[in-house]
């Protein structure tokens, strides 16, 4: 039954896997490859998934592990991803918000998060963007919950510092930072 449930839910979760893969890799061809490999591995190991547990975080966990291994392999091969920044700049593009100050704020938020150290950036993406619980995030990243909380606190603190230094858009939305 676990198999059936996984196979039923997997196609519906593909857009979220795609989004998370893009945010992990910051490059669309890597993201496509990563989603493929994640789905294949999930299907190979479908008996390991416990029915009733969160399928999305299990899939994120598989994807994160594959990506870490890929990065390690690339490091061994001394392959640099020199183009990522530029590629990602295209992906950031414009946001759909009509309100110009909101658009600026969103852009500042995304930029501030993207500048975080990788471990902190991922925690923000999983908790604040994907809406995973601390426990689920800890499982995805294979770290203790306390580590998730401290990374999140540091990440939010760092982002907050940046907004204190350049608060224009945030101030417009919030009525000023006290």
């Amino acid at each position: 039954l676990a198999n059936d449930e996984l196979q039923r839910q997997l196609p519906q979760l593909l857009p979220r896997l795609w989004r998370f893969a893009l945010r992990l890799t910051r490059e669309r061809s890597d993201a496509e490859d990563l989603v493929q490999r994640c789905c294949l591995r999930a299907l190979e190991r479908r008996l390991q998934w416990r029915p009733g547990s969160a399928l999305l975080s299990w899939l994120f966990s598989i994807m994160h592990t594959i990506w870490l291994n890929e990065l390690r392999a690339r490091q061994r091969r001394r392959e640099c991803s020199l183009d990522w920044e530029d590629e990602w700049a295209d992906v950031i593009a414009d946001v759909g918000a009509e309100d110009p100050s909101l658009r600026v704020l969103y852009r500042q938020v995304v930029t501030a998060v993207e500048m975080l150290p990788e471990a902190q950036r991922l925690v923000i993406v999983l908790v604040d963007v994907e809406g995973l619980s601390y426990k689920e995030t800890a499982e995805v990243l294979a770290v203790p919950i306390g580590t998730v909380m401290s990374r999140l606190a540091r990440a939010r603190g760092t982002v907050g510092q940046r907004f204190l230094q350049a608060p224009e858009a945030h101030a417009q939305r919030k009525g000023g930072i006290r």
Partner: protein
Amino acid sequence: MTVSETMLRAYVDGELEPIDVERVEKALEASEELRVQARLMRASCLPYRAAFEAQRLPPMPAGLQQRVESWIALADESKREIAPGRRRWLGFGAAVAASFAMGLWMPLPWRLGTVSKDDPTWIQAVARYQALYARQPFDRASVEPKQAREMLAAFAAQGGGRVSIPDLRPLGLTLRRVQRLTVHDRPLIHMEYLAAHGMPMSLCVLAAGSVDAALVTRSVDGMGVSIWRRGGFEFALVSDRPPSELAGIASKAASGELPWLYQSGDS
């Protein structure tokens, strides 16, 4: 009084009971350090989810959903046919292998775009690309000569030079596919050959714009690669064959003793 970080966070988030609000505000009046901490927390209350959801991300590739659904169907199939336990996974593995033959797996040509512009990395990229291939997709593939010639002519024109591409067929190989890829805006021709046995071998040609260079053979990510440059084009022969065997084939191709598959000026 002492205000914990949790309480301060709840105050900043507006989730504190009124009685506690009063206590925290008194503490804030008394402590500059606490006020700074609260300002930081307030500044970090940001619309993360809305900001990221407003990003214009690239759409999910059209074929991806179809491929995954095909694998799910294969997983169902293998579950029905193979006994439970370890062999079930082997069944799925075999089913996925079969999917290669049916064209359900698409190696991603644009993976080539993820490497740097330096020549050694394009070689790495084609080696990794070649390592993705199994034999099955090419068993029944064939090249339409006219289309291949047109593609090679367009490639040569775009490369800005006269190119002579050796034909490996006299060595007992059959040409199964010719495709044009791109590495950092530079056109690349990728020709897939198949012998009677073994994995495919590819001959890649890239407009290099540099001086001629003699043949060298090396191992890249577990694949053998023979590289040479001639007339402003760089050639790479990529295969999992032993380096000495690969070098022998490449030597014939690089020395001009084989006929040309395509030569600029051909009609």
